[in-house]
């Protein structure tokens, strides 16, 4: 497969995953904002913090008010990670790698693109239909995942796609957990208060983890939630589950050897092992924020290493 094409597939999948995550974050936060007491409404800033684009936001807007945050995250062309930017980029990538995809997948990406574009034109950030719109984006992305998995061969391209998708997902889960955990643990001493519960539930819903968490643990506690989102091997959005999936694809792409044959494989293998052989109490006593920060840095390093190992081989021939 062409290096340029592999790179494009990798990023297309990252963009779509990112857009879907943003839609979900916003939907949950919007829902939460309806139920919180008036003095607790200052929760749109943390949403921007999660995305890591606070500086960008602050350079464009004077304060984090609901409508501005929604516009910034969903439709702002100046935000390179807004849903609009992500879907536009994903579609542009899809056009560049048309030969690697099926008609189903291409048509769905186009449909998504026009959905978002119409959303901008109809000013969905201003009207009451925002949640319906966000649900359509979420569903549209998930439909795309389904088509992708149901119609595309498990070839090199598919594995590059999975690699991009799961690394992006691990990153987003770690960011949500990091931001919310801080916000929640610091904001209230009364664990178990109804306000607290609503917010913990919202955190889980932000990563579509509420139902599966409930099924496994029943009761909402900060320790169990952290354990579930970091270390669970069965839930497909936990950090470790994402790394396991990414590692499988990377091994196939690297020739399926034991150990490692390139830097990307080495770094991802080490990070995966780190999470496989740690328990949640060790993480919490080390400091959850620092631990998650470290994971994010290592994920970035893995992504750079993938670039070096597969996409930028021009100097090697």
């Amino acid at each position: 497969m062409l290096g340029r094409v592999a790179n494009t597939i990798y990023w297309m999948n990252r963009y779509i995953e990112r857009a879907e995550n943003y839609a979900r974050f916003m939907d949950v936060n919007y829902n939460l904002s309806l139920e919180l007491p008036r003095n607790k409404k200052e929760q749109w800033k943390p949403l921007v913090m999660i995305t890591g684009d606070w500086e960008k936001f602050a350079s464009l807007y004077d304060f984090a008010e609901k409508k501005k945050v929604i516009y910034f995250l969903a439709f702002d062309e100046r935000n390179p990670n807004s849903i609009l930017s992500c879907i536009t980029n994903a579609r542009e990538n899809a056009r560049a790698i048309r030969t690697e995809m099926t008609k189903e997948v291409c048509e769905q990406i186009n449909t998504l693109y026009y959905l978002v574009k119409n959303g901008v034109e109809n000013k969905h950030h201003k009207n009451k239909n925002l949640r319906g719109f966000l649900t359509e984006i979420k569903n549209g992305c998930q439909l795309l995942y389904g088509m992708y998995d149901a119609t595309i061969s498990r070839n090199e391209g598919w594995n590059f796609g999975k690699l991009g998708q799961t690394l992006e997902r691990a990153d987003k889960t770690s960011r949500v957990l990091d931001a919310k955990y801080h916000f929640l643990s610091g904001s209230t001493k009364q664990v178990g208060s109804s306000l607290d519960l609503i917010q913990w539930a919202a955190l889980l819903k932000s990563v579509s983890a509420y139902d599966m968490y409930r099924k496994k643990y029943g009761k909402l506690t900060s320790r169990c939630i952290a354990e579930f989102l970091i270390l669970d091997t069965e839930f497909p959005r936990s950090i470790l589950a994402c790394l396991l999936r990414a590692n499988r694809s990377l091994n196939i792409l690297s020739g399926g050897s034991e150990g490692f044959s390139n830097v990307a494989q080495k770094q991802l293998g080490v990070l995966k092992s780190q999470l496989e052989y740690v328990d949640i109490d060790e993480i919490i006593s080390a400091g959850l924020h620092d631990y998650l920060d470290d994971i994010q840095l290592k994920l970035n390093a893995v992504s750079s290493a993938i670039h070096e190992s597969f996409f930028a081989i021009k100097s090697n021939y």
Partner: protein
Amino acid sequence: MPKLDFSDYDSKGFYDEMFDENNVVRPNYKRFLDRLQNMSRKKLTNLQHATDRAQLSLGMTFNVYSDDQGVERIMHLDIIPRIIDNKEWQHLEKGLQQRIKALNLFIQDIYNDQKVLKDKLIPQEMIFSSISYLKELQGFKPPKNIWCHITGSDLIKGGDGQYYVLEDNLRCPSGVSYMLENREILKRTFPELFESLDVKPVYNYTHILRDTLESLTEVDQPTIAVLTPGIYNSAYFEHSYLAQQMGAELVEGRDLVVKNDIVYMITTNGIQRVDVIYRRVDDDFIDPEVFNKKSLLGTPGLFRAYLKGNVVLVNAPGTGVVDDKAVYAYIPRIIKYYLGEEMILPNVKTYICEEEDDRKYVMENIHNLVIKQTDASGGYGMLIGPKSTKAEQKEFINKIKQNPRNYIAQPMINLSRVPTITDDTIEGRHVDLRPYALYGNDIKIIPGALTRVALKKGSIVVNSSQGGGSKDTWVLNS
């Protein structure tokens, strides 16, 4: 529900493909019209809207140069097809085969023996002054001596009901993906009509294309690539579509590298040899070592590899000389010279501004003529005399005086019309016809075509870059 009514349809003044001058339906459209007349206006509008949506979700968009407003557009597909009966088609088929065979011999000759020039059939300067003539190819013979593997000639039908060839398009003719996708869409629009009308299929185009490309190399299971300028090219949809349908690699110039005169593509596992390249990049841009030095679209060394016979380029470089509109004027003589036959499909009468008598005539009659730049295409650089202002005419007269070699003139042809859906009614709109030919072991004409339609009332410019749309073209078996 009001039914569609054609009693007010205006079929006068031009050749109409559906109705004769007395508004009686022509036999090839009879059954289609029966079906159409049973339809309500609303139903027809709904079908047209469904078609627009299908085009968008298929990503059938093209980019318009120098148009900032939303870079992408769809080429509007009008759902009323152009229908051609079998007899008419056979005539076209024979005419195109004859033409392509002769033109291929001509190209081989001007790069090798140059008999046609020695015999003074065509002035030598005319060929050598063409910017598309590549002297680097002198003495070169491509595999199987085929130069123009893919042709998409532009034909028009005049007021006399005769087909004329307007342009031959031997470089990188585009639009075939529209022929194929238009058919897919119309099959969904009028499923039962397809069955009852017995329309010849076009779906095997990409299979024949692949076979054609494979036939040009001795390599068993060759690696075939489609070379595209990239996603911002106006025909990118088509490049990716064809690569997809043929199971070929879609590459850009930067994906290729030439080592020891062999072409490779850069993959995630190192480099892999490429045997045949269907290139959709113009001659001038394929290799910055030889041609345009500033080209970022090409690959350094590609032309060297080609001359060594290590890679096949399709179409061969250098075919553009036939697309020179001054050379076009000589095609009737070229056919006679190489095949000893009379031309089956006539040319449009062409005045060569470089020849003194013709130039004088053109200057005096510019208001009645269409003036074309010899090296331009896509509807750019032309003047339509009867629709131009005095100032525009003056401007072109000056241009012709300065550089007569650059201009030819043709009489206005009254392009035929096909009923077309407009905002509130159905009216005749002018069309042309672009069938596609593939030259491998023999010359195959795919029984269908891209019919381009000038959507603006009265307009005769059908180019998509100038607001033209398209129609599906149905060739009947009977």
